């Protein structure tokens, strides 16, 4: 039964990792703009992904 102590400790630890991830995401500005990233999906495969070297003036 004493394995349970270990398991409870682990479960808390894992939950803490998620809490830390939430804090990181907030600090990183992931919740700042929740709309534009959804639009960027539409650009997949468009040319802007690889910037061209030559610039036509």
């Amino acid at each position, binding site marked *: 039964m004493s394995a349970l102590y270990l398991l409870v400790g682990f479960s808390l630890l894992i939950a803490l990792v998620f809490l830390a991830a939430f804090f990181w995401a907030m600090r990183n500005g992931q919740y*700042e703009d929740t709309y534009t990233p959804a639009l960027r999906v539409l*650009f997949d495969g468009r*040319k802007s992904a690889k910037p061209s070297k030559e610039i036509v003036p």
Partner: protein
Amino acid sequence: MNIKVLPAQAKSCFHCGVDCLDRVLASDDKCFCCNGCQTVYDILRANDLEDYYALEDRPGTSPKERAGRKGEFAYLDDAQVERMLLDGDVQGAVQQVRLRLPQIHCASCVWLLESLDRLDAGVVRAEVDFMRRELAVGFAAERTSLRRLVELLASLGYEPEITLGGAATNKKRLGGDALVRKVGVAGFCFGNAMLFSLPEYLAGPEGVAVEWKRFFCWANLLLALPVLFYSAADYLAAGWRGLSKWIISIEVPIALGIVALFGRSAYEIFAGVGSGYMDSFTGLLFFLLLGKVFQRRTFDALSFDRDYRSYFPLAATVREGAAERSVPVAELVPGQCIFVRHGELIPADSRLRSPWVRIDYSYVTGEAEPVAAVRGETLHAGGRVCGLAAEMEISKEVSQSQLARLWDHPAFRKKRGSEFEQRVNAFSKYFTGAVLAIATLAALYWAGSDARMAVHVFTSVLIIACPCALALSTPFALGTALGILARSGLFLKNAQIIEQLTHIDTIVFDKTGTLTRARDNEIGYEGTALAESEREGLAAVLRNSAHPLSRSLLQGLAAVGDGVVSDFEEVPGRGLRARVGAAEVMAGSREWVGEAGQGADPRLPGAQVHVAVDGDYRGFFRLGNVYRQGIGPVLEALGERYRLLLLSGDNDREREKLSAFFAVDDMRFGQSPTDKLEFVGTLPTSGHNALMVGDGLNDAGALQASAVGIAVSENTSVFSPACDGILQAEHLQRLPRFLRFATGANRIVVASMVLSLLYNAVGLSFAVQGALSPLVSAILMPLSSISVMAFATGATRLAARYTGVER
């Protein structure tokens, strides 16, 4: 006349989708409405960015509105101006800037702007925030400049909105939000504490082994600590402030409940006499904070606190002898000579040096037509120069101008407290007293037989009486209402505005831009009919004039007007004269065109443009205001329940039309911004609660002085003056419904408060008997919170459907 017929599809511009009425330019089998659109297309094609047109159909914004004047953005080269705009934290040689581009409207915009590095090699990073209509650009300072970036954007039809007020707020915001972090911590602890409490609740009569019970209790205590010291800190501080100053607000009983809950649980765990209520404690804080988050709905793209600085340019062109340089407007001093071009705002009160100029004061005063000024006359800040550029001498600093002083009025500093808050706080006094009385009485009752039981009952009463559900009813009902209203086109600054809307008994309207559409005119013609060639000739002449009447009339004529014009002459305040082909065309005031006494009656409503061809008087065009669609029924509906007032900065030409809706005494014309402010300011003294509905800067004072000020805006991402709410112009006709819905939402708040008090009563009956076990508390607390939340949200949605705000 020979007209080239094009297929219907080809008639709308490939770039911006506007119908190509005037002329059709073709390139690559594609049609464009103007040179500007074609230029953008050519730039994009040359740089292999044609995907812009593939993502969305006709996504462009025509850059034709702005005449690409050379050196327009020269002021951005100024080091001082640059410093105001660029983000402070410069990483090496890379500069950061945030620009507001109100034109952003679709996925193509985002794609093109984020591909900016292909049009300017200096761009390191470009990121769009769609909801805020912002573009964040990182650029290498040695390869490009802010000015070049802005010029590039403007040439693509995305001219950044660079204003004096914006410069301060455009800088990067720091991510993160304390309240959300507190909810995160509380939620984490709540979830885990609940898991640790479950074994005991589920164990049945034989219970959990003692060692396990103690282990889980200590784990719960550990989890409760961050909630007490971090998440609950604000409540505890507010409760303490209230107690020490003897101002009993809703926070006091909440803080009492929190302390009692934690203290009692900690005691039980330390003493080993029970398992505590840590799951209820963490849950309580989680729900309380959730309510706070819910109420605080923000509309990223909108700003409710704009003052005159948001309209003003960042810099002005100062002339010193023959040299010109850009100076930030905040540093302009009296005596300096500035040069203001067509379409630019006058930044400070000044004296005109040019012979004459025409100025459009419609933002400041609401006058629909521009006025002419001559040398030496005083020009007021906020006016827009039309037609010719003008030179003027600053007579007052920017902050001292008549317009800016409007913001010094006390009306702009008032703080409005929430009425519910006041009511709840007044109620809290009795509530706290009653709770303490019940707790003491119950404790005294038990004290004789069982001292431990007395303490138990005392704390139980404090715990269960904690008005958590009460504190949740307002945020959830009004928070939901805010969201519903926003989806229907009315964006309110905060939830308190909904409460205030229910007490409105008077509605004050502005005319220009609110009841009428600001830029459109209704055009009628009286006189001898003009031949097709004469109309074309007139259009050709009008094309050369920047006067707003000329522009409006040209739009209404629906003629091409590409004839060759010679001997063009324009006399301010009078009219135009020019030759088109063989004919001489005159257009303008009655005195300018015809003999006195000829033509129309000057008392007729609407501005008039009289026309003569070859000295022969033909007739006149009448330009009247165009009222918004369906405005009549709306005014009638509102008139049944409210007193309606009209405050217009314009003249009283429309008095007769409007008298159908407003009492004669309730219409005031020719009102200056200060007149409006003062008039609205007197309404409360006669016992009226006024809702002001206005648009421009001229209403800014009245919007503040009224109980609730709502700004009507054609495009919410452009600008509106400081106000309590922004209403999308096309939804103005739903105003009566919005007002009914606000009343409904307020009733729901009261109902959910009653519901939450019922829960408190049930809980108290357990508590005074000493029967408040952790299990009862663990069920009752979340149950009351969640059911009040569900009731408040659900009932508000029903009310929205019932009042027709939302289907």
